[in-house]
């Protein structure tokens, strides 16, 4: 993670800083990570002076985006670089406080957009913790060796098990409602009742009690899984961690030794209007409020390499196309979200050879039992979910040279519209692979194709298992395409569509897209991003929270909030 301030150049946005998400352990300021065989220790020791923006101190292990960028990096690297880890213990390196949650002064001083983006990213990171538990046999345990408040408890909630120091004062709490007039918006409310199944009336009491709940009562209410006295606390948690690690290891194939790979820097080439990675390019036009993301598909060599088996794949490591390209895409998406706030529409292209992409997917899937390939595939899923959850309009443009096939077709299916060129001179192929059938699901649990064809089950049925390349017209008939255009219309129609989109209310579009992208049921994850975040974002703009006399604005100030008592 690094922050660049624009020096005399065009300011990136109102926050006037450019956030970079790349970091590595040698650059961490806020966390200590250590590995001992199957156990990892992750210690939060936030540097109060290390805020990503000026103007606040990160006291009491409170966090801001910079702290969370490092956590996200830790969780991701652990899966790739330390696949031997079965249990990770998250604790605090600061005495008597585990984590006080998101820094309130940072929140109070931030723009609405910053708050929303920050919360979304932290939510995605919490989901990554759970994803590692679910799919990588890496279980997180929280050792709350001190006060565990707000976002601190929400971090704990993302772990499979929570242990609290029993010292008569350490408590778990969600003080957002009573103290700040906002919600515990990093999954807190959702995980309380859905994941930990805390009774909802107790959750109500808990979430309105600023000082929280400690000791035996916290166990009785299922807010934590256990309490230990201070003198034995870490020993007991480590004992438990070893037990969990053993149990998790027993689920893995015997004799499989997992050796990690290194995740190197992506080092994009940066200009004033673009970021060029090896396989991905992000470029933008501020005046037109549009950006383009272009992903270049795999080469025949990339496919051949997959065919050589685990040893070759391991040797390729982070240079594997599917890993590298999606890491680049992830970085581009985050850059778009945080640093290009006035870009409302992003045009997506996937370039390449359709046959090769299809072959790539088959070859990658063929190696799925190799742990690293499993990680690569899960990672692709997370990046695609990041795309689903990005509040920008996405139009996929399937013009000449594109290959929206398999894992790259997911980009089109994640987009709000898919324009496809129907030009015999420049034949464009579209196709499904196993990657379109639930391998990289959306956050509400179903595949993008299923969400796409939610109202047309016959078409969905017809596409099941149809792993072949389709002509534009066939693709259109299959229900995959929003607008099929011939070469005469392409230029004009896409231009008009883009200009029209860029002219609509950004708020209305954000809301509309968030509703239309997720047909079907809900999961815990999707409830966090939809229900919880939507309410939080509403509360964030209400005067009772952020008005001049709102609770969030006045927190820590001498005046007390004055509420508008009308319920809305």
């Amino acid at each position, binding site marked *: 993670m690094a922050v660049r301030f624009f020096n005399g150049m065009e300011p990136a946005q109102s926050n006037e800083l450019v956030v970079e998400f790349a970091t590595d352990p040698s650059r961490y300021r806020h966390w200590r990570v250590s590995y001992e065989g199957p156990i990892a220790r992750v210690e939060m020791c936030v540097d109060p002076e290390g805020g990503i923006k000026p103007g606040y101190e990160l006291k009491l292990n409170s966090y801001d985006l910079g702290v969370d960028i490092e956590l996200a990096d830790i969780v991701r690297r652990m899966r790739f670089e330390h696949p031997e880890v079965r249990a990770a213990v998250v604790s605090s390196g600061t005495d008597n406080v585990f984590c006080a949650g998101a820094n309130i002064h940072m929140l109070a001083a931030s723009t609405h957009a910053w708050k929303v983006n920050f919360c979304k990213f932290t939510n995605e990171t919490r989901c990554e913790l759970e994803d590692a538990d679910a799919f990588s046999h890496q279980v997180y345990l929280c050792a709350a060796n001190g006060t565990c408040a707000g976002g601190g408890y929400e971090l704990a909630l993302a772990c499979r098990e929570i242990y609290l120091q029993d010292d*008569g004062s350490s408590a778990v709490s969600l003080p957002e409602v009573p103290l700040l007039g906002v919600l515990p918006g990093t999954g807190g409310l959702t995980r309380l009742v859905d994941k930990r199944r805390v009774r909802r009336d107790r959750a109500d009491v808990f979430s309105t009690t600023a000082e929280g709940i400690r000791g035996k009562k916290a166990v009785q209410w299922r807010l934590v899984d256990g309490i230990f006295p201070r003198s034995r606390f870490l020993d007991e948690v480590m004992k438990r961690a070893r037990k969990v690690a053993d149990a998790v290891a027993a689920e893995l194939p015997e004799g499989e030794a997992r050796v990690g790979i290194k995740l190197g820097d992506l080092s994009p080439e940066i200009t004033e209007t673009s970021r060029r990675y090896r396989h991905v390019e992000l470029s933008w036009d501020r005046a037109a409020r549009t950006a383009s993301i272009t992903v270049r598909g795999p080469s025949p060599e990339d496919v051949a390499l997959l065919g050589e088996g685990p040893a070759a794949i391991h040797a390729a490591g982070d240079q594997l196309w599917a890993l590298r390209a999606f890491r680049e895409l992830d970085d581009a998406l985050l850059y778009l979200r945080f640093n290009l706030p006035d870009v409302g529409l992003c045009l997506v292209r996937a370039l390449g050879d359709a046959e090769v992409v299809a072959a790539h997917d088959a070859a990658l899937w063929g190696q799925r039992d190799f742990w690293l390939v499993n990680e690569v595939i899960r990672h692709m899923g997370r990046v695609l979910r990041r795309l689903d959850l990005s509040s920008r309009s996405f139009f996929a443009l399937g013009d000449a040279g594109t290959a929206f096939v398999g894992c790259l077709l997911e980009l089109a299916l994640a987009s709000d519209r898919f324009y496809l060129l129907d030009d015999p001179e420049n034949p464009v192929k579209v196709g499904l692979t196993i990657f379109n059938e639930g391998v990289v699901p959306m956050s509400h649990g179903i595949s993008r194709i299923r969400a796409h064809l939610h109202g047309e089950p016959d078409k969905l049925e017809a596409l099941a298992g149809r792993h072949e390349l389709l002509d534009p017209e066939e693709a259109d008939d299959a229900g995959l395409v929003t607008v099929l255009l011939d070469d005469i219309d392409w230029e004009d129609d896409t231009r008009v569509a883009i200009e029209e989109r860029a002219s609509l209310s950004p708020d209305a579009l954000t809301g509309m897209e968030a509703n239309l992208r997720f047909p079907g049921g809900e999961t815990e994850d999707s409830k966090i991003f939809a229900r919880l975040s939507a309410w939080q974002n509403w509360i964030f703009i209400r005067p009772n929270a952020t008005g001049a006399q709102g609770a969030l604005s006045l927190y820590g*100030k001498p005046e*007390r909030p004055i509420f508008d008592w009308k319920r809305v």
Partner: protein
Amino acid sequence: MLSNSVDLNSKIPNNVGLADDPKLLRALEKWLPNYLEWWHDMGPTDFEDKPVYLRTAISVDTDGWANYGHVRMPDYRWGIFLNPRQEESTIRCGDDAGKPAWTEVPGEHRNALRRIIVTQADTEPASVEQQRLLGHIAPSLYDMRNLFQVNVEEGRHLWAMVYLLHKYFGRDGRDEADELLLRRSGDPDKPRILGAFNQPCDHWLSFFAFTMFTDRDGKYQLAALAQSGFDPLARSTEFMLTEEAHHLFVGETGLDRIIKRSAELEKIDPNGDVRNQGGIDFDLIQRTINYWFTYSLDLFGGEISSNAADFFATGLKGRYREDRLDEHRALGQSYRLQVVDGGRLVERDVPLRNAMNEVLRDSYIKDCERALRKWNRTLEESGSPNRLTLPSRRFHRHQGIYADHKFDPAGNLVSGETWEKEHHRWVLTPADNAYLLSIMKPVYEPGKFANWIAPPSRGIEGQPVEFEYVKMHD
């Protein structure tokens, strides 16, 4: 009904009409045996059978609250007393200043009030625990009696707070009252809430410094709570303050007597070596002051505090003698604070309400400075060239904005290495404690005093100094 007369026939003496509140009475009577058990486990147990010349409150009138006689400590009548008040009480500070005070807990402030009360309450049994073995090395029966007087009154202050918890905070309050008897000073697993109350206090120099400096924090906290808009809390703490004065007297005069004696020993010794004469040298006294004064400063809380602002704004806790100030809202004003920024001390203005802890700390420091002046007068009168000083408020702090930095006693920023090299000259060390324990042998003969301390100028309640304040051979 609140009255001046105390129901002394009750199991729990009180002036709060316990007899008319059977539910509360039952709850407190259930707590009583647990309290006695705690006292037996953690109080000055080895002296339980010795009659001690104690004062017991039998009424809240000026002449009735201090009734003297020999009492065995477990028979001491711990009671519940609230200061009576003639006029209608008002909220004295914050946004609602001037409005009628609350006689019941307002729902919106319930948690904050409970926290304030529990934190205050926790200090009372803590100090008894810290001091439980000091009787064995008491320098005189007079001092031993003072120790036990302090101990039983800390016990009574616990009762005062527990009464509030039981009466006004329902089940949560009862749970908290139980927890107060479960935490233990210095216990790694169940420590007392505040740092200074977990520090060992295992010899009399620390005891006097504790009653001088740490109990004095108590005085200022109680005084701030005596300004509370929650009337029962204000009245309880007002009455506690009358008792607290004696504790401060014990500390301030105890140190004064040590200083006086050390000056004498300095003169007696051909080389002016106090230690050579079995006394306590001035450097050691200074290190003790440095140690306990600064741990006590921590008790006031953060220099910039949203809690402090909230407590003031909501009228839960005022300033020292808030009622004598002209202005009670403290809005639109600021407080200038020294903060560390980029490795240097710079001045920063913070909103006054957020600096309320610091405002109270100022009153406290002023009071401590007064005591230092008095001690230095004693030195002057003895013809000693030594002078004692209060260290800077930034020195040796474990809470607040200075805790992350190292300062010398004058308040200058120093490096970690300097601190490591010098701190044994600045604050109490294990070697100091070992020396003090080596010279502190019990003196149980009436009228006799240990070599390292001067006798007091007079006895208790008109009794002579050689009075048998504790009957060791009854």
